[in-house]
Every structure is written in C-alpha cells, then in structure tokens.
C-alpha cells in the first residue's frame, strides 16, 4: 500500500452514485427556493430595458409603487456602494445608471409581498429613453469598431508566406450560434439580515466568493460581513459563474434597505433575457495544404459577439484561440480573435468556455481539405495530428501527454468506422431522399484556468470524536458529482466508508477566497486540497497513536478493517476518540495550487495548461434532403478521464456533455432581432434535446490510461471536454449533406446549429 501518496488511492475508487441521488429521486434535495421562508420575506423582480442602447431620460415608478403588495422600488441611485456585478471590468450594472446597453437590462428593482405582485408591478414602470445607435451583430460591431478589448493575435511562423507557397489553398467561413444554459433551476438567491449589518446570502452560484465580494462592495461592507452559502445548484454549466451575482446583489440590496429577508427567484423568460449565453462567432479561415491533406498554413479569424460588457469574455475568447488547433499541428499559423462589443446581453461562460467554437472551426477546416482532395476526413485528421517533432502548440506549449493518435486508432477500430463508412455509402446509393453521414472527431482540451492565479483551492476537514467526518471545500455542487468525489478522496485517506464523510454546503465562512467551480477544475483543485487537509489530520492521529501503542508513525495504517497501530487494531471511531482525549487537533485546512503553469498573455506564449484531457467520438446521422430533418443514429465515444475518481460519475458527465453539445450544434437556436431583442427566451422556442434525441445506440468507453501529471489519484478533469465530442455530429451531418452531391468537391456551407432550415441552405449551397 502506498503511504500518503495523493497519486494513488489506498483502495479502488468505486463507481458510487451521486451523494444526493436518493434525495433527488425523493424530491427532498433542497434547492434555494425550497428552504422555508422566514415571515416577512420579500420577493423581487426587475423592470427591464425595452431598448438595446439608449440614454435614460426619465423613470416614472409611480404606478409600480402604487401596485398592491409593493413594499419598495429601487434604482441605481439607491445603491450605497459600487453598482457592479462584473467579474473583471466593473462594467456590469446591477441597475442601469443613466444609460442602458442591452435590451432586457435591469433598470429598476421591485420588492413586494408576493412574487406575482413584484412581477406584475415591474411591468408598470414608465421609462423614457433617448435611443442611441446600437451594434447588434458582429458585422455592425466590426463596422463601428466596437470592442471590449483589443484584437488578440496568436501566431507562429509566417502564415501569409506559407499560404502563398502552399501547394493547395482554400478559404471558407462558418457561423457558430450561441447557446443558452437552460439549467433547470433558474437563477435564484435568498438573502437574510444578520446582526450588526451582517448579511447571509444563499445563492445558486458557481462562485460564492465572488458573490460575497460583489455584495460587500455593492453595500459598502467588508467581505467579513457577508457570508455566501451554496448547498447545490439545479444545473449551472457556466451560467452561474458570473451571472448568479446579479440576483444575489439585488436580494442583498433589498435586505440592506428593508431589514427584511428577500428572495429573488427569476422567471424563466426573464432569466433567458437577462443573463448571458455562450458566445456566438463568425469564423473565417484561409488555409494551405499539401496533396495528402497536411496543413501547411492556417489563418483563422474569430469574430466573437461578446455582448455589452466585458464579463469573462477575454478569457473565453482566449480559450477559443487555445483550442483552434484541437489535436492538430499547425506549422505556420495566425489566429486572430476579435472581441466584439455588441448591444446584446453580455455573453458569458458556458461549458467549454470558448473552446468548443475554436475546435469546431478547425474540424471544419479538416473537412474542407478532405472535400477538396476527395479524401476520408478521418485520414486528413490523422495526418495532421500532433506527434514527435510536431508537438508544439501555436502558443508555444510542448504537448507531453499526446494520446490522441492512439485513441483515434482504437476508436476507429472499435466503432468499425471503416466498415460502416462502406455500409453507409451503400445505403446512400440505394436511398434517394435519406442520406447518411459518419464522422470521427477528436478532442484535446486544456485543463487549468488560463488566468493563472485562479488555480488554487482550499478545504476544511473535521474529524469528530465519534469518528464521523465533515469535509468542506471551495467547490460547488451543480450536479457534476464533485461532492461524492471529494467524499471518496477523504474517506479513502482514513480508510472509512464514504457514508462516514458528510460534505457540507459550500460557504465563504468555511473556506475563503475560492475560485469559481469552473474550467472543469473542481475535482483537480478541491480534491487535492481536501486530500491534504485529511492527510494533515491523519498524520497527527498516526503520530499520536504511534506514541500510544509503541510503534513508529509509519506503522500506523488506516484500512478498511480499521486503524492498525503496531499490534493493535481499533475502529476509526475509537482512534478518533482516543486522539481527542489525547488533545490532538482533529481539524485541518488543506490548500492546493496547480504547479508549473505560467502564461504571458501579451505575447500569447507559455504553458497555460497543466495537462490535456482527450477524447474521440464517432457519430452516424441520417439527413432528409427534402426537409432538412436529421437524426443522430449511433455514437461511439472513447474518453480520457485519467484514472477515474468515480467511473459512474465520469460516464454521466461524458454522456450529458455530449448530448448538451449535440443540442448546441443541432436544435438550440439563439437569435436577436434587429432591435436587439432576444427571440428565443423560453422552452417553447428554445429547444434543448429531449430523450428521443439521444442517439438510440450510444457506447461510451473510458480510456484506460492515467494522467502523466501528478494530479489527485492521477485523474483528469471531465466537466467540459465531452461537450466537444458532439462536433462529430455536426461533421457527420455535413458528410450526409455532401452525400447528396458526391461529384461536388466542396464543403457544404453549413452553419451551426444545423437546424433543418440550415441543412436545407447547405444542401442548396452544393447545387449553387
């Protein structure tokens, strides 16, 4: 047995169910809105801007105040501290101050005795605007020079010269749509007054520390006066990383002014209008390649619609650039990224954080090259993979853990890719209307926050005298199974059953200064911090028990059969009680900061990632050339989670991530009209996949490798990477469209999402 080694679990990590599964199915897992309300609790609603960009001339709230049940109405003038919920740039107003910058931006805040009264009253505000010229589209923002920050360029070599000298050249473009998170639990926060000006906020947030700091600044308090608590979220996917703060801030403001508890549970339509989404992009590319399909020169331009404020857009668009190589070596390359400021709701984090868009772009390039040369796109992909001597990314990081070639080769075999490709050709030959397509696409996703200082985490572990254990850490539970993984790590340290470990709600008064649970980093960072906290206690216990039983400390072992100290075996509870009686501290914090990473953002050079997580997927689809309807028929996935912390949880992340990615690329449409009004703001018009959209045949295998980096148990992050496995769906649809015109050596002009209408346009593009 390894002694105190974070890289190896003491026992095998079982595929345990989610720690709250038995509560979920019984309806007794508590979400923010399920907590009993204190008497006098106020309910909140925003009055929203009807303009995309305008100066506010006047605000008449007479009718709002007069509405029965309304207790108070607030505007920007009522904010005692900083009117901001922006995570970086201090440019996200809680309530509009003098001007509005997007349609649906909150202008005033209503507090009423009931939620319905607040919502109804909020529609009675009379705001007069002087409209200003707005930029809604990428094109308009480009023309107006409207940007949230300067264009960024990541380059190596001389892409223009390489292009000029290329054997073959091609150019193309691609629109990639936005995506709403559609977490089933909408945004919600519940704030309660404490004594002496303190405030307690229960928030559905991925980032309690940020909510704490923003609320403190909003109210002119110190962080020590604000406690934020998160037991669980009903889904988040990045949509509650920065976006949850608005609702927490509003609730805190009402508590501050009224002294009464206040709850803001946002209506679904308002939620979709008011909060940010995945960035949509317009991508242009120009590439050079040889006759075998090897890329020799690549120029990519990403026009990202960032919305009205900065939010997290710099990092998100950086990640688009970081993933524009995916698994491929791009010799001479120039990746230009425009961060366009538009008068639409500020785009925000969403599972993949810009990565999926970058990756989809280069997959389209591969398809395009294959189409021109008449090659199987998989051959083109394999020929362009990173490998020995061609292992440096465009940002100058050497890839040390490349397993993409082996994974692709394995999946090509296990999915019977080649035989099915032939069978599909035969099917297509005999089917005039319905055409099939198949595609294999890989994923290489960089793990770490690319903002280096965020890669830190803390944990707090208590062992009680009865042998029960409480573990707390900075990560939040949004359904991804982080808490069960942490409980397993801690239980493993002490050799106890996982039921002995109670994970408690994430709270800023237990673990301070935490990073968002984001970037797939939750288990990597908090898992190691919790392991260290638990180990600190275990070492103290071992020292004490060694003294008590006359053996060396390293002869004290914590096993499933109990604690063994020399010749003595005692239960963990007995050991804990003995240590307590011996006046040993049974509580410890733990801390972890990811090593090795550094990044020079000005030059776009360095090692932003500690390691990469890999995966590959094969999708088979069928398309109806008459109507553009299509169906995903079968999916084979091979995914790399290192040495899994919990295979059941990891498989759930892979399947769920894939289907969410499938939705992004097929049915989920986000559109704004010319006045900047969001058209899809309810599940009636925004269609996430349903059960029948899940491919009937879906096979998921875990790659049997381990992380080459010394992460907790040598596991790998799993939250985001699987989403991008769904790129294979998009490429397969494109292949099926191409099958309608096999004589045309051109890539169908398909934009994402591939709705039936988009498919029909792409079909027409081949006839043009």
């Amino acid at each position, binding site marked *: 047995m390894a002694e105190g080694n974070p890289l190896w679990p003491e026992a095998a990590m079982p595929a345990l169910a989610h720690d*709250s*599964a*038995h509560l*979920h*199915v*019984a*309806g*007794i*897992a*508590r*979400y923010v*809105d399920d907590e009993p309300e204190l008497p006098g609790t106020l309910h909140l609603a925003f009055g929203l801007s009807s303009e995309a960009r305008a100066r506010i001339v006047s605000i008449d709230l007479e009718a709002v105040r007069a509405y029965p049940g309304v207790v108070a109405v607030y505007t920007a003038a009522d904010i005692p501290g900083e009117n901001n919920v922006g995570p970086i740039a201090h440019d996200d107003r809680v309530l509009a101050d003098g001007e509005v910058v997007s349609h649906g931006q909150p202008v005033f805040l209503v507090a009423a005795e009931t939620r*319905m009264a607040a919502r109804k009253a909020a*529609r009675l505000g009379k705001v007069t605007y002087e409209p200003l010229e707005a930029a809604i589209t990428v094109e308009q923002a480009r023309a107006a020079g409207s940007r949230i920050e300067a264009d960024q360029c990541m380059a190596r070599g001389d892409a223009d010269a390489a292009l000029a000298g290329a054997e073959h050249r091609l150019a193309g473009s691609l629109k990639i749509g936005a995506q709403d*998170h*559609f*977490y*089933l*639990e*909408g945004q919600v926060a519940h704030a309660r007054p404490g004594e002496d000006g303190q405030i307690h906020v229960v928030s559905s947030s991925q980032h309690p520390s940020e909510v704490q700091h923003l609320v403190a600044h909003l109210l002119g308090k110190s962080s020590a006066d604000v406690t934020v608590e998160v037991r*669980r979220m*009903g*889904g988040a996917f990045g949509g509650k990383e920065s976006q949850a703060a608005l609702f927490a801030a509003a609730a805190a403001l009402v508590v501050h002014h009224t002294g009464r508890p206040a709850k803001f549970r946002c209506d679904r339509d308002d939620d979709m209008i008011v909060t940010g989404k995945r960035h949509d992009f317009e991508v242009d590319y120009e590439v050079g390649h040889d006759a075998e399909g090897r890329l020799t020169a690549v120029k990519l331009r990403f026009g990202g619609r960032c919305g009205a404020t900065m939010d997290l857009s710099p990092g998100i668009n950086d990640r688009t650039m970081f993933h524009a190589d995916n698994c491929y070596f791009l010799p001479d390359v120039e990746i230009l990224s425009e961060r366009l400021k538009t008068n639409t709701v500020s785009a925000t984090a969403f599972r993949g954080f810009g990565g999926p868009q970058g990756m989809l772009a280069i997959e389209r390039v591969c398809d395009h090259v294959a189409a021109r040369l008449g090659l199987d796109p998989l051959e083109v992909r394999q020929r362009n993979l990173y490998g020995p001597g061609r292992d440096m990314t465009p940002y100058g990081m050497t890839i040390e853990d490349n397993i993409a070639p082996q994974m692709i080769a394995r999946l090509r075999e296990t999915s019977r890719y080649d035989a099915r490709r032939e069978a*599909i050709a035969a*099917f297509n030959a005999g*089917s*005039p*209307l*319905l055409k099939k397509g198949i595609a294999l696409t890989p994923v290489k996703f960089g793990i770490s926050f690319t903002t280096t200082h965020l890669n830190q985490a803390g944990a707090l572990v208590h062992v009680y005298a009865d042998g029960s254990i409480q573990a707390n850490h900075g990560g939040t539970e949004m*359904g991804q199974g982080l808490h069960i993984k942490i409980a397993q790590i801690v239980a493993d340290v002490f050799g106890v059953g996982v039921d002995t470990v109670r994970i408690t709600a994430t709270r800023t008064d237990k673990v301070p200064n935490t990073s968002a649970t984001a970037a797939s980093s939750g288990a990597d960072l908090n898992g190691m911090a919790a392991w260290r906290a638990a180990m600190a206690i275990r070492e103290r216990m071992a020292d004490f028990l060694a003294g008590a039983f006359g053996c060396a400390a390293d002869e004290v072992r914590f096993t499933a059969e109990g604690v063994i100290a020399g010749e003595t075996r005692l239960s963990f509870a007995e050991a804990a009680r003995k240590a307590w009686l011996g006046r040993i501290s049974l509580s410890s914090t733990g801390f972890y900061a990811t090593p090795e990473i550094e990044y020079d953002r000005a030059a776009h050079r360095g090692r932003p990632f500690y390691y990469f997580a890999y995966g590959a997927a094969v999708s*088979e689809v069928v*398309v*109806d050339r*008459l109507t553009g309807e299509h*169906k995903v*028929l*079968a999916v084979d996935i091979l995914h790399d989670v290192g040495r899994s912390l919990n295979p*059941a*949880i990891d*498989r*759930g992340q892979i399947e*769920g*991530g894939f289907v*969410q990615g499938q939705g992004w690329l097929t049915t989920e*449409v986000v559109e704004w009209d010319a006045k900047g009004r969001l058209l899809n703001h309810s*599940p009636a018009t925004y*269609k*996430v*996949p*349903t*059960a*029948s*959209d*899940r491919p*009937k*045949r*879906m096979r998921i295998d875990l790659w049997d490798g381990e992380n080459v980096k010394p992460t907790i148990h040598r596991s790998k992050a799993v939250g985001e990477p699987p989403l991008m496995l769904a790129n294979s769906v998009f490429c397969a649809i494109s292949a099926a469209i191409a099958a309608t015109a096999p004589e045309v050596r051109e890539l169908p002009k398909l934009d994402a999402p591939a*709705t*039936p*209408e988009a498919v029909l346009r792409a079909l027409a593009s081949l006839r043009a």
Partner: protein
Amino acid sequence: MALRFLLDGEVVELTAPDPAGTLLDLLRGPLRRTGTKEGCAEGDCGACTVLVGEASEDRVQWRAVNACILFLPMVHGKAVMTVESLGAKDKLNPLQACMAANGSSQCGFCTPGFVMSLHGRAIGALGSDLPVADAIAGNLCRCTGYGPILEAGEAVSSLAQDDAAVLAGLAGLAGDAMTSGVFEARQWFVPRSSDELVEVLAVHPDARIVAGATDVGLWVTKGLRDLQTVVFIGDVADLKAIEETPDGVRLGAGVRYAEAHGALARLHPDLGELVRRIGGLQVRSSATVCGNIANGSPIGDGPPALIALGAELTLRSSAGRRTMPLEAYFLDYGRQDRMPGEFVESVFVPRPATGTVVHVSKLSRRFDSDISAVLGAFALTVETGVITAARVAFGGMAATPRRAAGCEAALVGQPLSEATIAAAAEALKGDFSPLTDVRGSSAYRIEVASALLWRLWHRERGVATSVLDVEAC
C-alpha cells in the same frame, strides 16, 4: 363554494381559492411540498409533473400533468399524487431506487418530474402504452443525456398501485352539482353537464372557457393577465365522449389528446404519429382536441390534419347547435366563428374512404414536444390512378390553419404522377405568403411545404421518407 381534492388520502379543502392560482404554487407554498419544481412555468419542461387521478368506473385513471399551468378548480374532486407520495418514510419505491442507483440524476432538479412521469407510466396512467421516450418527451433534463433515465423506465415499467382507498375518497368529493365561486370579484364555474355549461354561458356570454389550460395557463404565468369570468369545462361529463363508428370519430370538447390518441390513430396512422408529437404527454393529458381548435391558433397541430380529413365542428349555445366545416371556423388571426355564449361542443372526423391517400407531416426543429414550423396534411381521393378530390391544409403558413386552394386545383382531375405533383408543388407556392418568425423563415416555409407534397409522392412509391425509421449501420 369550496374546492376539495385528495392528497395522499387527506382531503385538501380550499375555501376561497384563486381560480387562476396554480396547483404548483399551492403545493410549493402552503402545502410545503417542495419536491415538485418550477422549471419554466409554461408546461414545457416537466419539472412540475404530478399525477392527477379521477374515478373512471371501478378504477382510478391517473394522468401526468404539469402542475405549473394547472388551475386550482381543475383538481376539484380529483386525487393528486406528488413525488412525496411515493415510497414509504426513508424507503424509496423501486423506480426511485433504480433511478438513484443508476445515475438518473445529476443536478436533481428535473428528477422529481421524471420520477412522476415514469411512475405514471408504471401504474397505467393515461398514455402508459407509449414507449418510455414518449412518456418523458415532456420532461427536459440538461445534465444526464437521458440514457440512465430511459434505462430506469424500461427496468421498472410496471408497479402495483392499490387505488381502493383513493376510489373511496373520491366518491362524493365534488358532489354532483356545479361548483362555483367568486374571488376578488372574479367569478368562476365548474359545471358538470353541458346543460349547466349552456346556462352559465347564457348569463356570462364572454366568460373565458378553459379546458386543459395548456394555452390559457400561460396567459397567467407569463402574460401576468387577470382572468375575469372563467368556466372550467374539464368536468362536464357529457363532453367527454369518444364515439368511434364506421363513419368516423366524434370527439367531445372535453376529450384530451391523450384520450383521443387511439381513436385518431385508428382513423389513420399519420394522425397517431401526429398526436404523439403534439406537446409532451403531460400537455396531451391536459389539452383537448377541441381546445386546440377553439383557440384558433395558426400553429395548432390538430386543425390542419382534421381539415384535410373533412372534419366538422359543432358549436352549441342556448340558441341551439350549429355545425360547420372545420375550416370555416377560422376567420382570421385571432378571430373565429364563435358567438358570445357559444362553445365548441364536438368535432367529427370522417373515416377516410378506402383508397384515399392520406399524408400528414409535421416539421419542427425538435421532433418531440415542439411547435410546428409547418404542418402539412393531404387527403387525395384517387380513382383508377386519377385524383378525383383533394383536400390540402397547412398550419404555420398563414394567419389561420387553411386549405391550399391552388394546390388542390392543380391536383384534382389529374393522374397521380410526378408531373402532377410538380405542378401542384408549384401551385402551392402561390397559396401562401407565410411569415418569417422564430420557427422558420418565409422562404423555408414555402420550400418545405412543397417538400411535404413530394414526400407524399415518394412515400406512395415506397421510398423511405422519414429519418425516424432509419437504423444505424
């Protein structure tokens, strides 16, 4: 008068109910049953799924419904089952246990809704003959990708349900007479017979008639409108009849889509497939076929198909009954041929004659639980290779569900041939000037409307036309 319903054997009595109050708000608020969640408050996500049961002869007929748009008078005299009703204290029922063990929940917020949909399927609730995926088409999950949930539904597809106590509790719960009340000066009525309904409407000719509330519910939860006088017709016994005869099917105004599913499928399989794709099962277990007609929506899925089949609508008021071809009911956007005090009593759908080519196709972004971009319905009478009559109707192409006169003219008298289809498809382009909206552009709608005619042609020739019928290689 008080409303009464049965909740786990206890009678819940509401003495002064808000008729526009929802069951969801009652459950989560005063009753503290927070297991039922609000995901969207418009009947599209299923997080609020509960079961509602009614005595049906010697058993209880349960229905999975969305509590978020279920008005309180609609549960009067019925039994309600929530996620808290399942299992025993500290003991999960077999379905819950299976779902907990197999990874059916991640964030868990949608889970109670899935539990209730699958539980309903397992105890024989309305629509329980459908495959698992159809039973949960009205439940959205954003985390799991659905695999484990589908698996659990297959694994626990039947559960014993002893409804003797419920049946006893339901007896006499609502009484036999109409229930009515006043809330903040707004009157509401729950008549039990169509004669009572006629009387109420004679006195309140402008009363809002609510059957399943899957449309009107959103006026309240999203439109924040106050409903004035409301008549709930879901308990009008003599409007619930389904008369299936050799001539056709007559559906009373109280017949829900899920109840009519079998009878319509027996008229023609395309109708069965169409009904399968109308809303989720929760919506079809509330929404009525006649409500889908009466509200006059230009994108209702029922009307175009029924118009193509030559359906007739019967309206009734204190002045008597009148019957009209279904297409005549739709006058213009938001305007129907229904007088004050009048209500839709039934719709009659003739059985297609042997040899009639019937084809109904729905096009939407998502196959299940989505609203049509375009719905095309065709009924062609073909005699010795010649089209002698044609009824072609579309939804999503105009301000009302409407027949395509030019297309029909191009078909009638012609042989059923490729040339005829080409001419009719061309003529169809002149029949409509559809709008561009969130579900599709005008150009797209025009293109696919013709495509549906081509689909009919290819299908008649035995060519595979539906991606839903294709298997993987």
